[in-house]
């Protein structure tokens, strides 16, 4: 049977179809059930659509004010939560006055009971006016619906339109209330759809080159973008727009002027690349910049599109000379270690092969909170016989698999990290990194170094209290001997 029910999940038999054990002869459509509504009380790790829209897609944009139309909770939890650093540089050469403005400020309507009863539209409009007054330098204002405002039926689009006319700068509403869809993935999609419908095609770039790309689905987690941008620049490729790492509002408006869209996070942003292709004829390619092999391969692909293969080879050779020897050291140390990848989405298929090919790690299993069928197919293809492929695993299942599969390292999020540590197993933050960036050549070296330091933390060797300092003496006492055998 290709599907597995964890012992801890026996009371919830529905969990079985979400956990697939890979057998190479299984038909192609054998994947875990995914992107379906969450089982109540199953201790899901998933987030909501608002988190997907604001937290993932728009939260990286540097020059807009984010107004969350909500009771205080959603505003507070959307405040500075993701590591999306931004600079003050704008494409027209001017400076935005605040560095990391997207992380430092959040605005909310702090809805009260009377607003729930009588509607919150007036408050929303006032909040936009105040935002424009307090932050006159922002280039657009984004409004977010939440569970409450979705339910009371506040017409966000109408408010946005009205306020846009009044204040004379773009005001855009994102209708991704928390209860929409099964996971945060719905919020990604709404974010894409809204930005495409409202912004793309509305502005023109200050200058263009024959080598312009859209870099889509790259959010600059811990500086990923800045590293990859160096490679592109050296090859001679110009990032005209980034969707949305360290980008500005206007930049999204001229995405239709690029020659090629390069899609990095395929789950959260293939939508907009497709729409731009359909409407404006800009082709897109799906790429992957995790690990030296994938990074090199994908740089070659992008460079080939522009006839810049030779330049790409130079960049690749230079970077490999820089990181290669150190990676050899880590491969020696990490070979044979077993890893489980507990990611939000695509990292579960980006990492399994490179971790094996380049660092010698075995991927015992992969999982995702919000991937869809296409992502799970890739995940399945890229792991070995017997590996687990799980949709929306919970912490009890994680505990069981750590014990049953003798895992050496978990790549996961902060919600799992400390649980894993209690089991005596190291864990690395893969959503927002420990000491990133993790993408690109130097980034993969950072990842290898962080994995090495997590696994070889000397504390793991001294977890057990030794009754006596001499192990020979310990052997004589029955209990200690049993302990050693274990």
């Amino acid at each position: 049977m290709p599907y597995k029910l964890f012992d801890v999940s026996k009371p919830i038999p529905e969990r079985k179809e979400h956990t697939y054990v890979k057998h190479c002869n299984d038909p192609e459509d054998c994947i875990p059930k995914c992107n379906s509504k969450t089982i109540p009380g199953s201790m899901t790790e998933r987030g909501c659509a608002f988190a997907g829209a604001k937290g993932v897609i728009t939260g990286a944009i540097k020059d807009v004010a984010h107004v969350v139309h909500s009771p205080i909770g959603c505003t507070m939890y959307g405040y500075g939560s993701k590591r999306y650093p931004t600079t003050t540089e704008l494409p027209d050469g001017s400076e935005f006055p605040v560095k990391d403005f997207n992380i430092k400020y959040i605005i909310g309507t702090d809805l009260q009971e009377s607003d729930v009863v009588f509607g919150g539209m007036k408050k929303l409009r006032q909040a936009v006016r105040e935002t424009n007054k307090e932050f006159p330098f922002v280039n657009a204002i984004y409004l977010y619906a939440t569970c409450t405002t979705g339910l009371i039926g506040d017409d966000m689009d109408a408010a946005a339109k009205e306020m846009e006319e009044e204040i004379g700068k773009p005001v855009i509403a994102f209708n991704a209330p928390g209860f929409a869809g099964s996971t945060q993935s719905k919020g990604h999609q709404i974010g894409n759809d809204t930005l495409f419908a409202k912004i793309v095609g509305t502005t023109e770039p200050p200058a263009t080159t024959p080598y312009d790309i859209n870099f889509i689905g790259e959010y600059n987690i811990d500086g990923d973008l800045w590293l990859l941008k160096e490679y592109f620049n050296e090859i001679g490729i110009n990032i005209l727009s980034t969707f949305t790492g360290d980008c500005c509002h206007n930049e999204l408006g001229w995405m239709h002027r690029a020659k090629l869209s390069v899609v990095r996070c395929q789950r959260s942003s293939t939508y907009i690349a497709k729409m731009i292709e359909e409407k404006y004829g800009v082709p897109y390619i799906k790429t992957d910049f995790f690990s030296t092999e994938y990074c090199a391969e994908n740089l070659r692909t992008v460079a080939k599109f522009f006839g810049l293969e030779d330049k790409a080879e130079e960049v690749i050779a230079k970077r490999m000379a820089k990181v290669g020897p150190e990676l050899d050291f880590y491969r020696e140390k990490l070979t044979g270690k077993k890893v489980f990848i507990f990611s939000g989405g695509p990292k579960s298929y980006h990492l399994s092969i490179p971790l094996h090919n380049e660092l010698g790690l075995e991927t015992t299993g992969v999982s995702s909170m919000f991937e869809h069928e296409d992502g799970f197919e890739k995940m399945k293809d890229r792991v070995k016989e017997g590996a687990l492929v799980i949709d929306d695993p919970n912490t009890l299942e994680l505990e069981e698999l750590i014990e049953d599969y003798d895992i050496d390292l978990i790549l996961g999020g902060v919600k799992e990290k400390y649980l894993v540590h209690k089991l005596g197993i190291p864990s690395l933050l893969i959503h927002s990194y420990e000491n990133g960036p993790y993408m690109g050549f130097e980034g993969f070296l950072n990842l290898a170094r962080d994995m090495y330091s997590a696994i070889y933390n000397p504390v793991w060797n001294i977890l057990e209290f030794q009754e006596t300092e001499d192990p020979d003496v310990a052997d004589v006492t029955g209990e200690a001997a049993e302990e050693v055998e274990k």
Partner: protein
Amino acid sequence: MHHDKKVTEIHHDKKFSVVNPSKMCQPMGAVQALLGLKNSMPLIHGSQGCSTYMRFQLTRHFREPIEVASTSMNEKTVIYGGEYNLMKALKNITEKQSPSIIAVASSCLTETIGDDMAGIIRKFEDANPDKELPVIVPISTPSYTESHVEGYNRTIKALVENLTTLTAPNGKVNIITGFLSPADVGEVKEILNDLNLEGIILTDTSENLDAPLSESALNLYDGGTTVGQLEDTANSLGTIALSKHADSAGEFLEKKFGIKLISGPLPLGLENTDSFIRSACQLADLEIPENIEKDRGRLMDAMVDAHSYNYHRKMAIFGDPDFVSSMTRFTSEMGMIPTVVCTGAKSKRFTEDIETISKEKECSPVTLAGGDLYDMHEAIKKVGADILIGNSYGASIADEENIPLFRAGFPIFDRLGAQRISTLGYRGGIDFVDRLTNTILDFYYDEAGYEIVEEEDMIIEDQKFAEEEI
């Protein structure tokens, strides 16, 4: 130094929006309270983002595993009501986690659609007559009223109201802590121990949220207050609510069972700790033991030792209302000047406390009750501060104003050891005085022990002089 006896309140033009909030929603307060219950499972009846966001905030603060269940409401269930999801979640949690208690907190979503949680829970219990079910307590915590402070209050009240049973006097004292660091809860327990007085701690996070690296720490909230202790609260000598904003359970016990309630202040600082010791001794008719007197003496000693460094330093303080008002008093006791005090909750008790302290200590801080961090920052720009006390969200303000941030409160996600920040009681006070003063020494004094503020001014003067010469 100001000698106005009136508290200055700032009113901004900004009236409809909140920028960088200094409060969270009621369900978060509920979860904060529930994390101190033994073998319990908090369940948020709402969309799954609520529990995920809360787990994210709590886990990065405590660096401990945090479990919060969700009924995962979606579009369809929003239309038909949340009965199916809540029943299903109760079943799954009961069978999978087998907790002793499930506390169900509502959210803005389920309050808006008007789900009758108590009714659904009864239906679930009626449908499972043969099963051994956990105790299930509903708590109404709509996010669109008040803040996490009230969510905490309502949760303790709901637990006591639903569970307490009059049996025989137990000679104990109920302590409602409010949301404190595990170290501070631990200190309260130590003080009771010193007094030889048994307490029922509502709720006791000291073990769950500062757990050792051990597999046993994964048993569902292994330490903490038990259902039995909650039941026993009606038999106590009295209730002391350390947080004036979390005393509703105490009011309930006083009204219904005649259990005396003493509400606040938070034992933070010399005078407030004196109040707490007095209250506890009064309730149990005790003498103050010698070791407590010695600790008090040590705190005074620490305050005197520190005084030349922190005298007349300006303080800006933000966080939960009881924390801010007690910290205002404490830093005033140390000879510092509170210039801006800010709490996100609108609270009359808070403003009254600040007024009293301002009169007694002859200070006049800008007081923001129901304020946000943006307003606080504007106030700091106007009246100045040498040091900011509050959570990690103050870091960018401190950075911009070039002053140190002394981290206390919740959440603290950019430094280690939030669970071990100790401020309560005489011993916590000593720790605080030392660490705060050392922060001042690090920032305002050079390696030889000289204050560097003037030197900086001199450099600026020199530059001006040089520029003029050119």
